[in-house]
């Protein structure tokens, strides 16, 4: 029974361990050189010694449960390729920061909150000397906490009120205790406030901060400029669904649809962690345990983990459905604001494509070029879809065009030309 787990964060580690304990032959594929994902940055994590760990490895294509993997330094043309055939797959590919566009967000010195935290925790590097943290969600607190240890955080801004934090799955999973570790920073959080523009020539030197109405529209008389040299922004998370979508999993509310055991709509394919709903590391680990055990057909279901998942997932689902980003954020945009960073497509360009009659996601991509660059819509897809929907007055048809990626990551043409088509023969 071969179980392949994709992703080495809390969910993937737990899945690999559970599957190994159930007696399966487990391979854990992780793109990082060290296990732990984003959550465990800077600390040493280990998988069960029976697990075959493939670090610095990415799954770039799937054919059913046949996974195509490349291993080697990131973006090197000289990685080695292999094919893994799995009896069961557990997808635990995590999530990345979501950022809503604003004027100047494409200036150097503007980072996602996660980027700033990774650099601080894992590498001991500060993104700047006068840093503003802005966005929404309780994740801003651990980010600010990592930053205050090594640099000066001049402001910590939450666009909503704090009520949303109490409803977050972290709170539901009893994580308020964890949040308490960040409590010293709580009094400094300025609510209903946000960075709405960044300024500078070739790097950020100042931001405009403003108070927001509940719909995130700007209270104009509250605009203030403050001098900063780095901005850390995070407006929630986007699940990394490339492999789930390419393997054929059905989605619900923008996440992978799973049952109580983590089974997706595709037989033999399971999902765990942030790709099933943004719920934090503890829930991710519980989901991983459940999915790993199910994938390996463990004789005894992990009851504690199942209970934890049931509790945590209910809140995660409610959160995902109930809190779309408020539409007033579109008023932050000017015609010159970049929407697609890769292809430098502005609001004006997108509106021109819509005026010329682009009425579905695919046509919009092809005529505006948004989503056609190296990141293939991962950063801009959600917001371009939301803006087009707002302009059209109805949901953009075929918005999935921004999320279809037959190649889950780019690879060099020469790598593709020589990639193995079959698994190696077992000796």
């Amino acid at each position, binding site marked *: 029974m071969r179980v392949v787990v994709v992703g080495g964060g809390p969910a993937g580690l737990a899945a690999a361990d559970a599957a190994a304990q159930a007696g399966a032959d487990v391979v854990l594929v992780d*793109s990082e*050189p060290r296990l732990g994902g*984003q959550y465990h940055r800077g600390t040493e994590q280990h998988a069960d010694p029976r697990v075959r760990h493939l670090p610095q490895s990415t799954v770039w294509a799937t054919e059913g449960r046949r996974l195509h993997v490349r291993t080697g*330094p*990131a*973006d*090197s*043309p000289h990685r080695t390729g292999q094919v893994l055939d799995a009896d069961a797959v557990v997808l635990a590919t995590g999530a*990345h*920061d979501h950022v809503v566009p604003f004027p100047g967000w*494409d200036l*150097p*010195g*503007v*980072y*996602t909150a*996660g*980027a*700033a935290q*990774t*650099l601080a925790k894992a*590498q001991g*590097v500060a*993104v700047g000397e006068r840093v503003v943290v802005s966005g929404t969600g309780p994740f801003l607190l651990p980010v600010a906490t990592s930053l205050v240890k090594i640099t000066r955080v001049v402001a910590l801004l939450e666009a909503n009120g704090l009520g949303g934090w109490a409803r977050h799955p972290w709170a539901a999973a009893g994580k308020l205790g964890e949040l308490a570790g960040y409590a010293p920073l709580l009094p400094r959080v300025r609510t209903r406030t946000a960075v709405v523009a960044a300024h500078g020539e*070739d*790097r950020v030197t100042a931001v405009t901060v403003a108070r927001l109405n509940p719909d995130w529209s700007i209270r104009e008389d509250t605009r203030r400029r403050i001098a900063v040299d*780095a901005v850390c922004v995070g407006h929630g998370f986007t699940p*990394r669904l490339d492999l789930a979508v390419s393997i054929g999993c059905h989605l619900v509310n923008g996440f992978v649809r799973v049952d109580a055991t983590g089974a997706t709509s595709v037989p033999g394919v399971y999902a765990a962690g942030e790709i099933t709903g943004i719920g934090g590391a503890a829930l991710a680990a519980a989901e991983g345990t459940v999915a790993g055990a199910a994938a390996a057909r463990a004789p005894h279901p992990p009851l504690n983990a199942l209970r934890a998942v049931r509790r945590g997932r209910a809140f995660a689902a409610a959160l995902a459905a109930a809190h779309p980003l408020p539409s007033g954020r579109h008023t932050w945009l000017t015609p010159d604001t970049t929407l697609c*960073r*890769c*292809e*430098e497509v502005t609001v004006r360009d997108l509106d021109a494509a819509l005026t010329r009659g682009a009425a579905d996601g695919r046509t919009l991509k092809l005529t505006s070029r948004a989503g056609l*660059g*190296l*990141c293939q819509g*991962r*950063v801009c897809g959600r917001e371009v879809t939301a803006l087009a929907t707002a302009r059209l007055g109805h949901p953009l048809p075929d918005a999935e065009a921004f999320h279809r990626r037959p190649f889950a990551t*780019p690879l060099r043409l020469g790598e593709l030309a020589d990639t193995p088509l079959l698994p190696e023969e077992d000796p």
Partner: protein
Amino acid sequence: MRITIDGEPHDVPPNRTLAAVLIAAGRQSWRTTRTNDRPRGVFCGIGVCFDCLLVVNGVPDVRACQRFPADGDVVRTQHGAELPE
């Protein structure tokens, strides 16, 4: 280990990505975009946005936030879209 960045030698500690090396050295950007020639550096930090691109040993489009240097690497700023050397 020792690498060169835009011709300058750098001693880099192990376990530090190229992005961390550059930011620690005071650089916020090391690439220009192909249409508007605008500077870019790290944005997402997780390997998703492809903003932080460098040319490493003659090969462009290498994400600095994902790439760990090896001894002797020759690294330079990327200007717009480039062909491999």
